[in-house]
């Protein structure tokens, strides 16, 4: 598709040719490719690795998902069996699916809003304070998997911060096994996930806010914008739509990929699968049970879920302000 638009953009080069249409199109294409050989050379190393470690694996995963494959024997084609087993027989997968969607539905929008709201508040501050607050909010996500700190806070004995505080306040009498009690596991993981979530998207929003044309605000004040909320809605948000879309992709993808936090805090497998997500389920079948066909089916479902949700949200956001 895009090739056609490119040829349309450059009618000048085609004009000189008098050959029949079809072959002249191909000749033109070839000539264009040859003219840009330096571009291809520059891209080649990266694109080779990208193809090898991102594009090819997605395709392989799709193909393997239709086979029985245990890494020892040659894969055997079994059609849709993995998928039917996944959705009809695997109860744990359904729990994982439910948990994943629950995580994403809560942490996705909240973290997205949080990224924006804090970036927006911080943006009004003086530069020194702004830099400091940016650091405070960004530090958790950058500090390299130190979420085990939460294990100390939600430690199951009375020396954990949460238990100690609640006992001292007299709210509870005995320490709670936070990470071993089904009803607390999910909220705690959501909390930690939110704590970690002010990452790349947050920085993109801070940057986006700084690029909004300042004269727009003054013009807005003259045109009768009365308070900061109207200013936000009518000027700021429409001006930074591209960053909003980028941030959505980053936050959404992260919110659907919860695994490390779950494994580290709730254990693997967690109590009654309370913290099982699609990714931990994938890890279970891929690295412990070696059912690669089945695991690939899980991966493919995850792929479709992630890309599908992202594309839907992109379409939604594109419509904002139109």
């Amino acid at each position, binding site marked *: 598709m895009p090739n056609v638009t490119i040829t349309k953009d450059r009618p000048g080069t085609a004009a000189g040719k008098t050959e029949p249409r079809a072959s002249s199109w191909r000749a033109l294409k070839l000539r264009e490719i040859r003219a840009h050989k*330096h571009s291809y050379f520059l891209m080649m190393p990266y694109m080779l*690795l990208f193809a090898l470690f991102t594009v090819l694996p997605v395709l392989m995963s799709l193909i393997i998902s239709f086979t029985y494959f245990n890494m020892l024997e040659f894969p055997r084609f079994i059609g849709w069996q993995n998928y039917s087993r996944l959705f009809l027989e695997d109860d744990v997968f359904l729990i994982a699916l439910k948990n994943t969607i629950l995580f994403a539905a809560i942490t996705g929008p909240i973290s997205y809003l949080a990224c924006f709201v804090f970036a927006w508040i911080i943006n009004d501050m003086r530069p020194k304070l702004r830099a400091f607050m940016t650091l405070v909010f960004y530090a958790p996500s950058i500090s390299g998997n130190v979420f085990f700190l939460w294990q100390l806070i939600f430690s199951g004995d009375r020396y954990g911060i949460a238990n100690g505080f609640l*006992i001292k306040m007299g709210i509870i009498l005995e320490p709670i096994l936070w990470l071993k009690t089904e009803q607390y596991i999910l909220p705690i993981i959501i909390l930690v996930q939110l704590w970690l979530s002010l990452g790349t998207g947050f920085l993109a929003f801070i940057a986006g806010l700084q690029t909004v044309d300042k004269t727009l605000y003054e013009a807005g004040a003259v045109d009768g914008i009365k308070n*900061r909320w109207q200013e936000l809605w009518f000027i700021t948000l429409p001006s930074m739509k591209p960053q909003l879309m980028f941030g959505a992709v*980053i936050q959404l993808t992260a919110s659907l990929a919860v695994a490390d936090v779950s494994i580290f805090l709730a254990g693997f497998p967690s109590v009654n699968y309370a913290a099982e997500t699609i990714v931990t389920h994938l890890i279970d079948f891929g690295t412990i049970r070696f059912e690669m066909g089945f695991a690939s089916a899980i991966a493919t479902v995850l792929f479709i879920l*992630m890309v599908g949700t992202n594309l839907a949200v992109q379409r939604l956001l594109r419509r904002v302000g139109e």
Partner: protein
Amino acid sequence: MRLALPLRKKRVNRSAMGTFWLFVFLAIVGAFMALPLVYAINAAFKPLDEIFLFPPTLFVRHPTFDNFIDLKTLLGQSWVPFTRYIFNTVFITGVGVVGHVLLASAAAYPLAKHRFPGKTVIFTIVVLSLMFAVQVTAIPNYMVMSWIGLIDTYWAVIVPAFAFPLGLYLMKQFMEQIPDALLESAKIDGANEYRIFWQIVMPNVKPAWLTLIILLFQLLWGTDGNGFIYSEQLKTLHYASNQIILGGIARAGVGSAVALILMSVPITLFVFSQSRIIETMATSGMKD
């Protein structure tokens, strides 16, 4: 006051009450964000009897370096010298970061500044790849790596990091704002594409370098090489520190000391590069 004259330009449309409540809100959430890190910093300097104090305290009363001394003793007992774990992580991070910045910039330049057949398709695939997490491709990735013999080498972690899609995306968006006239004039002066890339484009995208560096640093510094690296002498610092932390309650103090050391490196890096990173992120937006 209905004066239309904005005397202090910064305060246009700002009510004092609104500002006050927003700051209260910010302070509360900021405290929540900082709490675990503050706790870790304090716990790292707590003597044993303060760690197991009831009720638990947040701030240390009698700071000591006991935990760090314990850590040093503990490290002296490890089977592989601890400096080896540090070397492994530094090597993986260093090579990965440099290689990624070079390869991603080289690929971003044509995508940002040239028009050639296949460009839109390639960039669309890159954007799509931002939309799913690495876990999706974990199993085939392992197979690809075993075919080309990368398993149980540093390269199993380094080589895929070279092709990290977010870096290419950010670099390409940033390069688009380099004025075309600059590149044209270099071309008229007789520079070929490679020279333009190396001598004109690269010096102009230094803020983006820093952003790619910190993103990759974050990715590689925290890697435990799990699943790809089996030899103990090749394992990373993060793996080793996990082993210490998994010691559980007995290692609570030492664990905090490790956490403090682990997180201080990327945070320091960010403090020094913050303004450049924000500059890069300003161009990160997705246009249709």
